[in-house]
Structure formats: C-alpha cells, structure tokens
C-alpha cells in the first residue's frame, strides 16, 4: 500500500502551481463579482483562459503528442483538476468537447476529423456543445428520438437536444441521432454538426440560479455531413458509452479540494460570527470535515486503482453519488451556520468575499440530477455491484 504521489507527480504539481501563480490573474469568483462582467464577457474570459492552458500544454495531456498530448497519466490529470479547483480558476468552455469528443475522435475518428477539429477545440477557437440528452431521453438516454434522415450522401437532422452546456455560445455540436428507428442501441450514430446553419435553432435554458449556461438545440432539417460521422453508422451508442469512461478519476481529487475551500469559508464565517467554539457548530463542521476527507480517501483509492491499470468498478457511481449528495449537506450547513449573509447574491453588499453560497445553494441541487441522477447511480450500484435482481 502506498498513497503517496511519486516524485514525477510532485514535480508536475510544483511546475503546475508555479505556472498557475504566474498566469492566473484572479480567482473566478472575483470575475463573477465584477459588475463590469456579463455572461458574454465571462464566457470570453473562460475562452481566453482555455487558450492559455492549451498554449502551456495542460489540455488533452494524456493524448498522443501530435494532438497536443504529453503522455500524462490519469494521476497527473487528476492533479491538474485538483490544483485548478483549489485555486478557483476559470472553468474552460470546451470542457465537454475535450473530455468526451476529443477521446472519441482520437479512438474512433478519422485522421481528417482529428486534424480538422482537435486543434481549434483545444485552443477554444471553436466551441463545442454536447447533443446527447433529449426532453424524453434523460436518465433513459437510449430513448433518444432525434432522426438523421439520409439526403443524398449526407443526412438531415430532425429533433431536439437539451442540457447542451454553453449551447448559446457554441459553434459545433456532437450529436447522437437515430439512423435506424428499429434498433434501440445499434440504430444510433455519432455526428459532428455545425450550429451556424439553416435548420438549427439554439435557445438558452434559464437555470433556477438565473444564468443560462445550458441550451436547447432544435434541428429542423439541419445538414449532417457523412464525413462528419464519428466511427461507423450505428456505432454511436458504443462510442458514447466508451468515451464516458475515459474521464475516470479526473475529478477524484478535484471535488475534495474544492470542498476544502468551501468548508474553509464556513469555518472562517463561524470564526467571524463567533460561533466556531459552539458545540453544535463544531459537531456540524466536524462531520463535514470527516466526510470530505473520506471523499478524498475514496479518490486516492480510485486513482491508485486506475494507476495500477485495472478497470475501476463501482468507484465511478460511488464517487458521483458521494460528492453530489455531500455538496447538498455542505450548502445546507453553510446557510444554517453563516446565516443570512450566505444567502446574499454574489454582487450584493456584505456578500462573503470568497464564496458564492447563493449560487452554490442552488447549483448543488443540479449535482444529484445531471450526468446520471442519484437514482440512476443507486440503480447501477444495486444491479452491477450488489447484483440485486431486476424488478418485476
């Protein structure tokens, strides 16, 4: 057993920290608080930060060199996200493109597709959004109904996609669409589709926090070119499922690091309002501290397993269930312990300077819903790990 990082890992972390200190102008929360910013300017700051990261070679680190990779390991990727979360750096806009589409192109795409799309995806020149979910295909993704109808050698898309992160700013979308209505899984194909064309309408979806980071994309005869199919026709489901597993471990250290920061703000607030010595407050803080350290223990174990080259088992579902449910307890505690101040919107007078609890109190509710709800994760654990029989 050895839960230490290797010397190379530590060297990588040191070099990364140095780079971040030199290059990060200010933590993201200060951008959010800055009244000069609106959703568009914030988006451009995210894009600029992505460009910087890319020029420094921190994106697609584990890809082949020719595609911007540097042969990084899963552990180094985890250290990268950990450090960026710890320092509250701007979230990059092409996060889904790089984590999902990139691997899809590298493993299943054509040489031409890689050359055409990867560089601009990494640089942020072209913004990608993900077109998987639909209004009636969320937890049950394979129920997707968006049709790709043959039109000469190409296809025409008809249907609707939702939860397309950054949809309103995206240039391209990677889409799962039906090329065969009769085959639930084998009838799905993976398309790359430009959004700036006739037959595409993008609408922002307003979140309960007021922002519109998400979008809906409506296809009404939009052109999907044959050469922009990733893999073969009917391979879409298999490709989507495999790429969803490539990011294993990438967040294993990031969430505990992020919640360290959140928790530190609660502690600081309790010091300010003089309740940090109160036994009920300490019991609450103690459990939050304990549960976050346990999350980190899970993460280290998860990474160790990945590093040892073995396929992770229930870890992914447990990790998702754990951090998303923990985030709710943490936000509830913050609002209880910090009082009204924690409810103030980020730009309000007296708002806590280092943490936007008003946003987190709402955002944490999304965590147990997106990317496989807590219910779906529990189903997976019950069936795949505990091998409990299917109902009925």
């Amino acid at each position, binding site marked *: 057993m050895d839960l230490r990082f290797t010397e190379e890992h530590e060297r990588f972390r040191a070099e990364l920290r140095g780079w971040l200190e030199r290059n990060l102008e200010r933590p993201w929360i200060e951008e959010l608080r800055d009244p000069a910013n609106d959703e568009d300017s914030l988006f451009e700051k995210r894009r600029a930060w992505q460009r910087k990261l890319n020029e420094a070679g921190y994106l697609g680190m584990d890809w082949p060199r020719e595609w911007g990779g540097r042969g990084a390991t899963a552990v180094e990727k985890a250290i990268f996200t950990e450090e960026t979360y710890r320092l509250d750096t701007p979230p990059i806009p092409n996060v889904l493109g790089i984590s999902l589409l990139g691997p899809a192109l590298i493993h299943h795409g054509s040489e031409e597709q890689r050359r055409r799309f990867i560089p601009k995806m990494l640089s942020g020149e072209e913004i990608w959004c993900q077109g998987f979910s639909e209004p009636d295909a*969320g937890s049950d993704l394979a129920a997707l109904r968006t049709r790709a109808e043959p039109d000469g050698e190409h296809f025409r898309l008809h249907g609707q996609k939702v939860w397309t992160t950054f949809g309103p700013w995206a240039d391209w979308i990677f889409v799962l669409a039906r090329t065969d209505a009769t085959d639930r899984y084998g009838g799905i194909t993976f398309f790359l589709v430009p959004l700036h064309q006739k037959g595409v309408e993008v609408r922002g979806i307003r979140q309960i926090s*007021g922002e519109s980071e998400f979008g809906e994309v409506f296809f009404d005869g939009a052109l999907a070119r044959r050469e922009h199919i990733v893999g073969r026709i009917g391979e879409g489901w298999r490709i989507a499922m495999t790429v969803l597993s490539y990011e294993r471990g990438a967040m294993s250290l990031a969430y505990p690091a992020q919640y360290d920061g959140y928790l530190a703000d609660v502690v600081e607030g309790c010091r300010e309002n003089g309740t940090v010595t109160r036994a009920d407050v300490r019991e609450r803080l103690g459990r939050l501290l304990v549960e976050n350290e346990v999350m980190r223990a899970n993460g280290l174990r998860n990474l160790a397993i990945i590093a040892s080259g073995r396929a992770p088992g229930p870890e992914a579902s447990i990790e998702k269930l754990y951090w998303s449910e923990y985030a709710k307890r943490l936000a509830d505690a913050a609002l209880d312990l910090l*009082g*009204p101040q924690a*409810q103030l919107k980020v730009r309000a007078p007296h708002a806590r300077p280092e943490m936007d609890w008003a946003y987190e109190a709402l955002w944490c*509710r999304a965590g147990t819903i997106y990317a496989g709800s807590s219910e779906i994760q529990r189903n997976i654990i019950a069936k795949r790990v505990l091998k409990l029989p299917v109902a009925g």
Partner: protein
Amino acid sequence: MKFDLDEDRALLKSSTRELLEKESPLAEARSVMESSAEGFSKPLYAQLAELGYLGLALSEEEGGSGLGPIGLAAVLHEMGRVALPGPYLDLVLATEALRELAAPEARQALRGLVGGEQRILLARSESVSGIEPATAATRFEGGRVRGRKCFVPFGASADALLVTTAQGLVLAPRPSAGWNAQPLPIVDHAQRFAEIALDTPGVLVADTPLAARRLEAVDRLGALGAAALLLGLMERALEIAVGYLMERKAFGVPIGSFQALQHRAADCLLRVESTRSAVYRAAWALEKDPEAARLLVPVAKAYAGDSGRIVTGEAIQFFGGVGYTWEYDPHIYFKRTKTLEQFYGSTRAQLESALHAAEI
C-alpha cells in the same frame, strides 16, 4: 374535540383560495417576483387591505376581524400554496407590534396600516450573520433615529418603519427624499430585503420594556405565520411533484411507479401532514392557551422549517433536469422555503425556545 376549522375561518380560507387563484395565480406571481422592484402587486395588496386581511391579527375592538391566529394561519397557508409575493406577513407583524401601544402616532399608524393607506414595516436586524447584538446599536436621541438596519423586509418601499433602538421602538415616517436604502438580493428572488442607513426624525412609541413585550408577541406570531406559509409551500410543492411523477415517463413507465421515488414521496407526505397538525395546533394554542403556545409555536416553526427544506428539495429532485430550470415551478417553492426557514427565527433558535418552554 375538533380539528376542522370553524365556519367563519373555513369560509375565510376558501374565499382566500378563490381570491388568490383569481388574482395571483403562480404565473402572475412569477412576473411580480421577476419584474417588480417593490416585489408585490400594489392593486392586490390594496384589495387585501380593503377585504380586511391586514386586520386579521387584531380583535374587532382594535378594528380587526377577530379571526385570530387560526384565521391568520389559514390565510397564510393559502398564500404559501400560491407563493404569494410581498410583505403580507411582515405587515401583519407590524400590526402586532403596534397594537396595545398608547401613543397617538402608533394608534394612527395602526389605522393606516390596517386600512392599507400606510405600508409600515419593522426594521430590526443589525447583523448580516443573524447573530444580533444584545442591545441595538441604533439609537433614538433628540427626536432622531440614527443607525443602520439590514434585511429590512420590503423596506425600500415602506411608508414608515418601526425601528428597534436602544431606547425602544421608534416610528419613523419615510423621509421626503426617500430611504437611504440598498437592496440586499438573496437566493429567493421573490424576497426584497434592504439595508437602510437611518438618520431621520421619529417618535418613540414604546419604551424598552414595552417594546420587548411587543417584540416577543411579534416573534411568536412571526414564527407561526412563517410555519403556516411553509405548510402551504411544501403542500403545493408535493402536489406538483406527485403530478409530475404520474405524467413523466422513463423506461416506458411513469416514474411515479418506481418504488424508491414512491417511498420518498410517502416520507414527504408524512412531513406535510405532520406540519399541518403542528401548525394548526400551534395556532389554536396561540388563540386559546398562550402558555402552551410558548412551546407549540416554536415546535411548529422548527418542524416546518426542517420539513419544508426536505420536501421542496425532493420536489426539485423528482422533477429531474427540468426541476433545475427557471421555467418549471419547484424552485419557487424551494427558494421561498429557504427564506422562511432562515428568517422569522431560525430553526436552531426555535429549538432553543422549545427547550426553554419545556424547562429543559
């Protein structure tokens, strides 16, 4: 023994529901929350005043309806169901603060308040953390009130403020130049809090001991009122969530047929029904057995706060992805609940009051 409302109050409750469903359906309430600076519909509030809703906590001799805490709970229960925006409860609490005050200015203010000509609100908090100083830093000297109050509910548009000071309760009319107020926007976009810097003429309407007595009554009625609003909010949130569970399909069946969700919905119903029992029992006690109310009101508010957080949170989860969108309704109930859970006496404070009442 009888748990049902008597005729007068049953009628009040049903007519309130009709009125609100007609005048303030959620779509209407939403646009008020989103676009009105004051955060409420002036015509509707004028109508409420006209119909006597602002006199609910007052006896008939006081110019009120005499329908008492049970009537008030029934009305707030309905207002919670439609997430009525605005300072209704806060205005009622101002009447509770003003009643029994002998000063002619107070009596006049109470009349204006109940009649709807004057919107008077309490300005109390001086701390953003919710941990208030033992005595207010705000002072009343030489006929002027000086200090800084925060989280004054709907204060920016108040015609007068009832300000807690080290010297007692001060009635301060809105200065001609308006209040020196800064909005304090919070998670709940229906709420309108203001921070107000005060240096303005006022009248001392209650010295410290009298003010303390009135504020104790205000706190008790506020806790009951918030609990009743929470009851309406969670009751309605569960209704719409269950409706969605029936209509939304996944894997070819309504998601409401999934037992894991059924059992959580059942736990939510237990919370809602138990809150109903606790709120009306507390209202009944406040009316008929004030000694018992010292325990039962904090019991209702503490339980309603915990339950509201749980039930409205589950409502968002039951809706899934769309539950996180502005377009669907669960977030309205969730946010309003958060405000009511934290203000009008936090859960932790209510637990302490309950323990004291039980001599623990």
